[in-house]
């Protein structure tokens, strides 16, 4: 057992040490990591200091990698590899982007509770976020445990939401905080996802929610929205959330199938350089539910 798994938040967040993810890991170690991820949902790997190639190589062992949404915008220039989502306040020349500018206003959407890529037909399975520099203040990431939140629902509510399907759209969630500066190529249709799913690794039921959730099929728009707000409210109560305070060199992996996360406010005049690789899930949630 070469890796050490220490619970930071029981059944939800673990600190995992004793390995360097940039090295060639054997299948046994790799499987231990997967087991820990299934048990906890959030794995914090301190002191990794991965370069982009190392991060990409390790991430690709977990499954197919997403490409960044920035590619949708005609003429986009990337600071990093197209398989890395650039969660920074830096431009292609590594300069801090202007306050109040489009890049930061778009990125403010990361401060809404979400799970990555729930607005894609096949959403994300894992996200891996590597910390290259931290701002002068703020910039914590908060995580919400959607399996624990599901378990804590009243039976009446569990029965009410079983089988429901919600439409997710990033253009919708951005509109809720007043951002609409998209080119036509960046506008994508909403995609349906199940509100409750079974997490395959743990066989536990989980809520599957995000600020991207716009409406619920078969329920009037206002009633569906209020149900979504109430569920989001429930799932993000303090007892289900964990705050990660970043150190340079941290790699944090989270399971997008059973968590939400959000960034907190930070000093945008100092560099915050976070690089995310994102592993696609195996299929749309509705298809996974049919097979299960």
């Amino acid at each position, binding site marked *: 057992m070469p890796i050490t798994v220490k619970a930071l938040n029981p059944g939800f967040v673990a600190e995992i040490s004793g390995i360097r993810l940039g090295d060639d890991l054997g299948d046994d170690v790799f499987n231990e990591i997967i087991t820990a991820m299934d048990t906890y949902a959030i794995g914090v790997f301190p002191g990794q200091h991965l370069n982009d190639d190392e991060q990409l190589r390790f991430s690709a062992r977990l499954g197919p990698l997403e490409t960044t949404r920035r590619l949708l915008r005609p003429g986009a220039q990337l600071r990093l590899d197209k398989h890395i989502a650039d969660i920074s306040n830096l431009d292609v020349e590594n300069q801090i982007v202007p306050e*109040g500018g489009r890049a930061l*206003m778009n990125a*403010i*959407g990361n*401060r*809404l509770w979400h799970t990555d890529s729930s607005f894609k037909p096949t959403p994300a399975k894992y996200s891996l976020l590597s910390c290259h520099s931290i701002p002068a203040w703020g910039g914590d990431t908060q995580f919400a445990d959607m399996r624990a939140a599901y378990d804590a629902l009243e039976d009446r509510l569990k029965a009410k939401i079983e089988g429901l399907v919600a439409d997710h759209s990033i253009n919708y969630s951005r509109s*809720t*905080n*007043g*951002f609409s500066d998209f080119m036509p190529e960046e506008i994508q249709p909403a995609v349906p996802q199940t509100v409750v799913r079974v997490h395959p690794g743990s066989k536990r039921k989980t809520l599957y929610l995000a600020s991207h959730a716009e*409406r619920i099929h078969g329920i*009037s*728009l*206002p*009633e569906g*929205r*209020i149900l979504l*707000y*109430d569920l989001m409210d429930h799932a993000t*109560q*303090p007892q289900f959330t964990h705050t990660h305070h970043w150190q340079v060199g941290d790699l944090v992996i989270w399971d997008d199938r059973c968590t939400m996360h959000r960034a907190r*406010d930070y000093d945008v005049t100092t560099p915050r350089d976070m690089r995310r690789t994102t592993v696609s899930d195996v299929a749309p949630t509705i298809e996974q539910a049919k097979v299960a």
Partner: protein
Amino acid sequence: MALTIKALNPGFVAKVTGVSLGEPFGEEVLAEIVSAIDNYAVCIFPDQPLTDERQLSFSARLGPLETTRRVNRADFKHRLDTRVTDVSNLDENNCLVARDSDRRMIAMSNRLWHTDSSFKKTPAKYSLLSARAIPSEGGETQFADLRAAYNALTEKKKQEIDDLIVMHWLTHLRSKTGFDHFTEAERAVEPPMPQVLVRTLPGLGRKTLYLAAHADHVIGMPVPEGRMLLMDLMEHATQPEFVHTHTWRVNDLVIWDDRCTMHRVREFGITEVRDMHRTTVSDVGPTIDQARVA
């Protein structure tokens, strides 16, 4: 001292007994009631069987009364006096409204945290809600203490927000529920209204946040930045330590101070009557004018 005042939530919610609000009473009792509201913000008066007429005459002693927004809804026949807001799930024939009816969809926004009439130029000072019929479960009203929430902010945050002006807009609230079957009269009447984000209450000179789901953007800030600030403040102000849940009994009259609280109703079924009658007392002027005078 005619009244008995028992704190249900220290400095925030009190149960007030010893007066029959439907009967005539003197100025000194009225002054005690106002003082209790200043001290607590939410006052619960149990066992007050009121007719609308008596609720109206008591409410009018607290200030000028608002007229219900339903006057902009020519297709709705009024079940009640136009100075009583019909917070029920009944139509004009006292029948339960249908699940997807416009009446129910409009009322759905009462499930979002708000303070009454913050979208009007002169917003509400007090709301008085009388429970005439309640469902067997659900339908609680939750209140958030915006004075305590302000006090709990960091000094840095207080300085950041102390002088900000926020635009409150009914259209913004509507966009949150997505309901859009509004009449032209409804659409026409309410442009966005500026309100201060932090106000000082005249009664005890205490500072309070002034927030609602109607808060659309902050003047002088890019919309996403302002809206995120508002969302963070709403979340802060509605944490469990600032929230009180009132489970209704028939004939409860609850008075809350709209200047320093938010409230929302919780879910209830569609097959049981919930009949609540609200009178609303206007404030003395727009919050911005009040801040200039202070």
